[in-house]
C-alpha cells in the first residue's frame, strides 16, 4: 500500500486530535503547573513529625497560655489554649507570629563591644575586671523569676544593687502602693467584679495586661449592648481601637488627663456622689474644664456615670497619681471590683542587696525591654535577643530567643490572682547565646541554678497546698502526691493559680490631692505598647502595610 502525503497529513491530524482525548496533554499541563511552582528559590516547609505542646508565652510578663505546633523540631504555629484560666484562649495579635521571631533579621547572635564584633571570653574578662574594681548594678525587667534569684544573689554577694525596672502596668499601680504601704507587686485589678471601668488612655482592648482576660470579659458583658453590664469609658485624645469600642469615649485634650481627674474629683466630692470628703484638688472645676477642653456639663455627666453603675475602677495607662487618686475617692482601693490585694502570696526566697551610690558596671537582663532601659552607670553589659542598637550599652550580649531557654513566669502585673508557670526550652539554645544568669554563674559558680530555683519554687507551692494547677483540667495542689509531680505538670504547660483574691481593706493615706505627672506621658495607645521585643514578627506588616487597620508602629523595624 502506497503511503501518500495525504495519508501522512490525515494520520498526523488524527493523532493530534486523538491525543486531546487522552489524559496525556492534561497530565503534562498539570505537571508543568506543579513543576513551575517548585522553583528552587521558593521556600518549602520542613516536613517531619508533627506534635502539639503547651507552653506559656515568654515574650512579656503576661505569660499567656500557648498551644505550640511543632513540625520537624520547629514551631510552625501558635494558638491560644481554649480553656486557659487566665487567657481564655486568646493571645495578643503579634503572639500568633511569635514563632517567627527567632529568625528575625535583627536577631542578635554575636557579641558586640562598642559597635564592633567581640567574643564571650572578652566580655567575661571585661566583666570580671569590672567586678574586681567596684560594685555592680543588676537590672531585672521581670522580678520573681528563677533567673531573678541568681541576679539578686549575685548583686547581694558582690556589694552591688539589684534593681527592678517596672513596666507601665506595674507603674500604674505604684501610687496605690505608695499610699497604702504594700508592694505594687501584691496589687491587682479585680476586673471581673467591676461594672464600670474608666480608662485614662489604657489600651484595654488592645493588648493591655493579660490579653484575653479583659477582651473576653468585654465580649461577654459589654459588646454590642446599649446598656451593658460592664461599662467601659475610654478617656483619651484620639479615637483608638479601645475608644472605638467603648461604651463612651471622651476626647480629652492631650496631656490634660490630670486636669480632668481634678475636675471629676471636684464634682464627686462637692455633689456628694461619694462618701469621701476629700482631699480636693486646688484647681477649680472651671479651670480644669478649660484645660481638659471639655464642657463642664460633660464632666459632670461623666462623674455621675462613674458612680451610678458601680463598682467602678479607674485604670491609668501610667502612674499618674492625680488620676489614680480618683480610685481613692471612689473607694475602689481594697474593695471588690477595684484595686485589690492579690491572693495569698507565697514568699519567694531572695537576697537583700545594698545600694551603693556608684557602680563600676551595670548588667541589664534581657527581660528589660529596650524602650524601658533607665540610665545606667559604668560599663553596661546588655543581654538581648534582638538587636536594639549600641547607644544604650557598651556590650551587647546575645541571649536565647523565644522558647529557647528554661524559664518561669510569675504573676502578671495586672492579675488579681497569684500564678506560676514554667516555659521549657522547646528549641535548643544556640551556642552563641547565654542568659545573664548563665553569664554570672561563670563568675560565681555558687549562684543558684535556674533549674534548681524552679524546683524550689514548685516545692514551696506544694508545701503551701494552696490553689490549683490547670493543665487541661484543674486539679487542687493538695491532691498532688509530690512536688515533682506538680513540677511535671507545670513543665508540660500547666499553670498554677493561687486562691481567689483577698478581701482585705487597704487604707490609703492620701492627705492632699496629688499633683499630676510633671510631664505628659506618651499615650500608650500604640498597639505594640505591651510588646517587649524591639522588633515585630515580619507578618505584622499585614496590619500596617498590607492593610490600613493600624498605623505603622513608631519603633525600629528590620
Amino acid at each position, binding site marked *: 500500500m502506497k503511503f501518500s502525503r495525504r495519508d501522512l497529513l490525515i494520520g498526523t491530524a488524527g493523532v493530534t486530535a486523538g491525543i486531546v482525548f487522552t489524559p496525556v496533554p492534561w497530565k503534562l499541563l*498539570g505537571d508543568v*503547573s506543579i513543576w513551575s*511552582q517548585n*522553583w528552587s528559590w*521558593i*521556600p*518549602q*516547609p*520542613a*516536613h*517531619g513529625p508533627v506534635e502539639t505542646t503547651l507552653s506559656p508565652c515568654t515574650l512579656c510578663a503576661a505569660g499567656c497560655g500557648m498551644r505550640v505546633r511543632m*513540625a*520537624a523540631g*520547629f514551631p*510552625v*504555629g501558635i*494558638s*491560644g489554649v481554649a480553656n486557659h484560666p487566665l487567657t481564655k*484562649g*486568646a*493571645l*495578643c*495579635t*503579634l503572639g*500568633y*507570629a511569635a*514563632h*517567627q521571631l*527567632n*529568625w528575625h*533579621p535583627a536577631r542578635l547572635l554575636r557579641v558586640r563591644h562598642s559597635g564592633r564584633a567581640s567574643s564571650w571570653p572578652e566580655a567575661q574578662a571585661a566583666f570580671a575586671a569590672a567586678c574586681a574594681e567596684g560594685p555592680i548594678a543588676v537590672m531585672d525587667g521581670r522580678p520573681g523569676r528563677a533567673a531573678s534569684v541568681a541576679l539578686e544573689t549575685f548583686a547581694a554577694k558582690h556589694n552591688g544593687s539589684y534593681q527592678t525596672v517596672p513596666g507601665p502596668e506595674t507603674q500604674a499601680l505604684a501610687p496605690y502602693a505608695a499610699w497604702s504601704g504594700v508592694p505594687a507587686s501584691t496589687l491587682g485589678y479585680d476586673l471581673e467584679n467591676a461594672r464600670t471601668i474608666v480608662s485614662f488612655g489604657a489600651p484595654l*482592648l488592645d*493588648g493591655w495586661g493579660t490579653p484575653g482576660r479583659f*477582651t*473576653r470579659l*468585654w*465580649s461577654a458583658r459589654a*459588646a*454590642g*449592648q*446599649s446598656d451593658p453590664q460592664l461599662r467601659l469609658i475610654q478617656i483619651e485624645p484620639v*479615637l483608638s*481601637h*479601645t475608644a*472605638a469600642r467603648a461604651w463612651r*469615649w*471622651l*476626647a480629652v485634650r492631650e496631656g490634660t488627663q490630670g486636669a480632668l481627674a481634678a475636675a471629676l474629683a471636684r464634682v464627686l466630692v462637692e455633689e456628694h456622689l461619694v462618701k469621701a470628703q476629700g482631699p480636693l484638688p486646688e484647681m477649680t472645676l472651671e479651670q480644669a474644664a478649660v484645660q481638659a477642653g471639655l464642657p463642664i456639663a460633660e464632666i459632670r455627666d461623666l462623674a455621675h456615670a462613674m458612680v451610678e453603675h458601680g463598682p467602678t475602677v479607674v485604670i491609668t495607662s501610667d502612674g499618674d497619681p492625680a488620676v489614680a487618686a480618683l480610685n481613692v475617692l471612689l473607694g475602689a482601693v481594697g474593695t471588690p471590683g477595684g484595686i485589690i490585694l492579690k491572693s495569698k502570696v507565697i514568699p519567694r526566697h531572695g537576697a537583700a542587696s545594698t545600694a551603693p551610690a556608684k557602680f563600676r558596671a551595670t548588667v541589664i537582663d534581657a527581660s528589660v525591654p529596650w524602650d524601658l532601659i533607665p540610665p545606667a552607670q559604668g560599663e553596661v553589659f546588655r543581654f538581648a535577643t534582638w538587636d536594639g542598637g549600641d547607644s544604650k550599652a557598651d556590650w551587647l550580649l546575645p541571649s536565647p530567643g523565644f522558647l529557647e531557654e528554661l524559664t518561669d513566669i510569675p504573676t502578671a502585673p495586672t492579675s488579681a490572682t497569684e500564678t506560676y508557670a514554667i516555659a521549657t526550652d522547646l528549641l535548643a539554645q544556640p551556642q552563641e547565646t547565654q542568659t545573664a544568669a548563665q553569664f554570672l554563674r561563670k563568675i560565681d559558680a555558687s549562684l543558684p541554678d535556674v533549674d534548681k530555683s524552679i524546683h524550689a519554687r514548685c516545692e514551696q507551692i506544694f508545701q503551701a497546698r494552696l490553689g490549683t494547677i490547670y493543665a487541661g483540667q484543674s486539679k487542687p495542689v493538695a491532691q498532688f502526691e509530690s512536688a515533682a509531680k506538680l513540677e511535671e505538670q507545670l513543665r508540660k504547660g500547666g499553670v498554677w493559680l493561687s486562691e481567689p483574691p483577698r478581701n482585705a481593706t487597704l487604707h490609703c493615706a492620701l492627705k492632699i490631692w496629688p499633683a499630676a505627672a510633671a510631664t505628659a506621658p506618651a499615650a500608650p495607645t500604640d*498597639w505594640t505598647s505591651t510588646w517587649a521585643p524591639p522588633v515585630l*514578627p*515580619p*507578618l505584622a*506588616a*499585614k*496590619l500596617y*502595610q*498590607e*492593610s*490600613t*487597620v493600624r498605623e505603622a508602629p513608631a519603633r525600629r523595624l528590620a
Partner: protein
Amino acid sequence: MSARYGMVIDLDRCTGCGACMIACASENNVPPAAPRATWRTGITPMLVHTLSNGKEGVDRREAFIPIACMQCEHETPCVSVCPQQAVELDKSTGIVMQMPQRCLGCRYCMTACPYHARYFNWWDPQWPPGMEHSLNPGVSVRMRGVVEKCNMCHARYHDALQKAAAAGKKKIDLADYVPACVEACPTGAIAFGNLADPNDPVTMAAKSPDAFRLLESIGTEPKIHYKTTQAWIRALADRNSGRPTEAQHV
C-alpha cells in the same frame, strides 16, 4: 447530606486587633509584605477594614469589618469566569476552592469578585533566611503569578477528615475543624459552623434579625454573614455597597 461551612462575624465584638489576619497568614504560609506591597497588592486572605459613620470629632464612631472570601454559593462569580477550572465550589463542603497549580494568573476571578477578596502574588514569596523553618507543613507555598484567597483553612479540614477516618467515621467532628481566624479572635467575634445544619448555633445566628450579608442583592448567596446591633453600621451595609465605602481605604 453535604455540609455548608460558613461564618457569622459579630461586628459589635470586633475590636480591629488584626489577630485574625496574622493567624490566617501564619497558618496558610502567606509571606510577609514585599517592600512595595500595599493593601491592594499585598496578600491578606482575611482583611480587616475600618468603618466610620463619616462624622468628625467626638461624634465620630468607628467599627471594624473583617472581609474574606464570601464563599458564594450561587453562580459563584470567580468559578464561572476561570478559564482554567482553577476555582471550584466544593459540593461536599460549600467551600470555594482555589487551586493555584491550575491558575494561569489571568486575574479574571479578581475582576469578577464583588468583594475584592482575591489576591494576586505579584512577587516571589520570601521569608528572612531561616524563617522557612516556621512554615506550616500542611500548606504549600504559592508562587509568583497565581491568585489566592481564603479557603477556610482547608488543610485543617483535611486534618479533621483524617482524624474522622482514623476513628472510622464518615463525617468530621466540627470541633476538629476550626479555621485559624476563628480560633484566634480574642473576643469570639467570628463564629464558624455548618449552615446546612438548622440546629447549628451559627445557622441560627445567621437567621437573626441583626444578621446580614454583603451585597445580598446580587444573589450570590455568600456564606459569610455579619451581625450588628449598631444602626449606623447596618445602614452602611444596607446602602448596597459590598466595599466599605466609608473605610479608610482611599
